């Protein structure tokens, strides 16, 4: 039988890293930067948080709630901010090719995550190739107090750690700022036509730097959520997988709208784990086909939105292009 009450919480838990990643990437792309480094940034964010809480757990016996949460979050934000700064410096100041820079960041970030993950594993001297931060996980995964009492309703809506709600709040804020504020308008102007925006007195460099760094920090939180909450505080190398690319797919799927991304990421999360719930008998191969769905739907959306050619559904016009004032 299809068990919807257990399916939805798992789909949602699966969706949160994607939501963080896609919100971060959406605002980055809105300012015209196609940051293909997001998968790497999410690794860096995750491992930075892990390093922070690892040393905190090692240093004290009785942990307090505030530092147990604040240390990993701040480490994660700092790590992803540095990656964002690196990307912005290379593409905005040095005007390097965005695709190449992004891919280099991904190479670096995934390597960085796995290297330090591996080093920490060696430091603990454990037999299994993973680090378990179960005490930190207890703080991150603490759900709302009334979740258990309200039955299936609580399980579907209240059973998540605070980062999950934060993801939704950030997505809503991002969507509001992009669509309804002056800052958002100027940001979109930078992404659509930097030359026009520049002529209107908007500081292109500042906008691109701030948005890209913010985007990276949001995406980094997705990595943190994955380790601390979804994976119950267990870091193992390469476990994060291709979720970063799925987040980029989600950006297109939602046609650059973070508020749609909240539901769409849950759809993707559901598609990601659907194979667990569909009775395929002994045939394991079918589940690999199901895993293809998120990408196939994204392609269909991409093609259809380009076919219909509605102006509000297009990628930002200067996406992937660097701005140099003296270019003609």
């Amino acid at each position, binding site marked *: 039988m299809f068990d919807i009450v257990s399916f939805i919480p798992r789909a949602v838990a699966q969706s949160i890293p994607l939501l963080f990643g896609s919100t971060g990437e959406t605002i980055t792309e809105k300012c015209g930067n196609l940051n293909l480094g997001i998968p790497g940034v999410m690794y860096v964010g995750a491992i930075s948080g892990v390093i922070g809480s690892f040393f905190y757990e090692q240093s004290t016996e009785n942990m307090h709630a505030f530092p147990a949460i604040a240390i990993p979050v701040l480490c994660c934000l700092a790590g992803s901010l540095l990656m964002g700064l690196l990307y912005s410096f290379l593409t905005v100041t040095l005007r390097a*090719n965005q695709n190449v820079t992004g891919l280099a960041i991904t190479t670096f970030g995934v390597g960085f995550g796995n290297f330090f993950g591996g080093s920490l594993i060696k430091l603990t001297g454990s037999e299994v190739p993973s680090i378990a931060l179960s005490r930190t996980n207890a703080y991150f995964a603490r759900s709302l107090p009334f979740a258990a009492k309200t039955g299936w309703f609580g399980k579907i809506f209240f059973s998540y750690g605070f980062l999950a709600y934060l993801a939704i709040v950030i997505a809503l804020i991002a969507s509001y700022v992009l669509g309804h504020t002056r800052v958002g308008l100027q940001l979109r102007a930078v992404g659509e036509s930097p030359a026009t925006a520049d002529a209107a007195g908007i500081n292109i460099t500042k906008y691109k730097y701030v948005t890209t760094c913010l985007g990276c920090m949001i995406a980094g939180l997705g990595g943190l959520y994955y380790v601390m909450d979804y994976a119950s505080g267990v870091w193992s190398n390469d476990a994060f997988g291709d979720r970063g690319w*799925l987040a980029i797919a989600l950006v297109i799927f939602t046609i650059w709208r973070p508020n749609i991304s909240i539901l769409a990421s849950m759809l993707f999360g559901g598609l990601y784990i659907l194979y667990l719930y569909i009775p395929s008998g002994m045939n394991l191969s079918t589940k690999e*086909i199901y895993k293809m769905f998120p990408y196939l739907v994204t392609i269909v959306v991409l093609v259809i939105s380009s076919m219909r050619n509605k102006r509000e559904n297009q990628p930002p016009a200067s996406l992937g292009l660097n701005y140099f004032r003296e270019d003609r």
Partner: protein
Amino acid sequence: MKNKTKAPLFHITKRKMLPWHRRWFIRLIGILLSFVVCAIITMVMTGLNPVEVASSLVYGAFGTPRKCWILGQEVAILLCVALALTPAFRMRFWNLGGEGQILVGGLACAACMILIGDKVPNGLLIFIMLVSSVAAGAAWALLPAICKAKWNTNETLFTLMMNYVGIQLVAYFTIVWEVPKGSGKIGIINQNTNAGWLPQVGPSKYFLNILIVLALTVIIYIYMRYSKHGYEIAVVGESENTARYAGIKVGKVIIRTLLLSGALCGLAGFLLVGGTNHTITTTIAGGRGFTAVMVAWLAKFNPIGMIFSSLLLVFFSQGASEISTAFSLNHSFGDILTGIILFFIIGSEFFINYRIHFRKS
């Protein structure tokens, strides 16, 4: 309040094309600086003597004849993918789908080896493998190309997504064909009969791959530089409107070029499966579709330059894997070093293309 606004501390202007030796000089400085940073980072993170690390880096790449052959083979495959992507990049079509195109090429090749391996003579089998790999790779690139030509669909994102469809397709067939059942992998195909294995030519089993790719380098160089197709690609890349005005059918050029691009990626899959690994896994492309983007870009899409840029990157990944074994470090250390070197090379392009004027005091 000061009313007088100062001139900014510096401003940037675009340079005219520098002569080639100045360009390479700037890049060389970038690479040397990156070496210094890598040495410092190696020292800080691992506490090892950088000279020792550097010597084992070189040993890892060139230490034994066997290591040299592996290096040559790796360079050849990476170069093949970079060559495949070049025509598309010249046209400003960002084909980030190399990974998927290699995989489906390899998958088609493996399918032939498994399904008709014992039914047809070996020569014919290899021919069928080649044709089907190339066709599969081309088909994987054709879809984004058609959409780009018809509706101007964003090709970067489309080809990126096609990678994962390809990976899942391979994962599916891996389970369908797994040997033994339940192991989750195919294992060496036709181990006993060697049906469909590319014959060994010359001193090493890798030699044939290297020869094929060298020939390909020359062909692509000529194709891009001296053929009418190459010229059309360059014009479309510079300006689609100019191309249209000159009577070039832009859609046709896009589709034709991407067919070529995908076909060559399929060829890389064929060389990997038929020539080297004799098996297929989801990781057989090993990120080459992405690394090749950087290889092609570093060489500024010049096929001869790509020999050097792919050699540089492969040298580092091979050497770094030696370091990680020798000093029992994590394998990913190589990725960190590669990343740092790439950042520096990417950054050095700025000083080739732009000039900084400081304010005159």
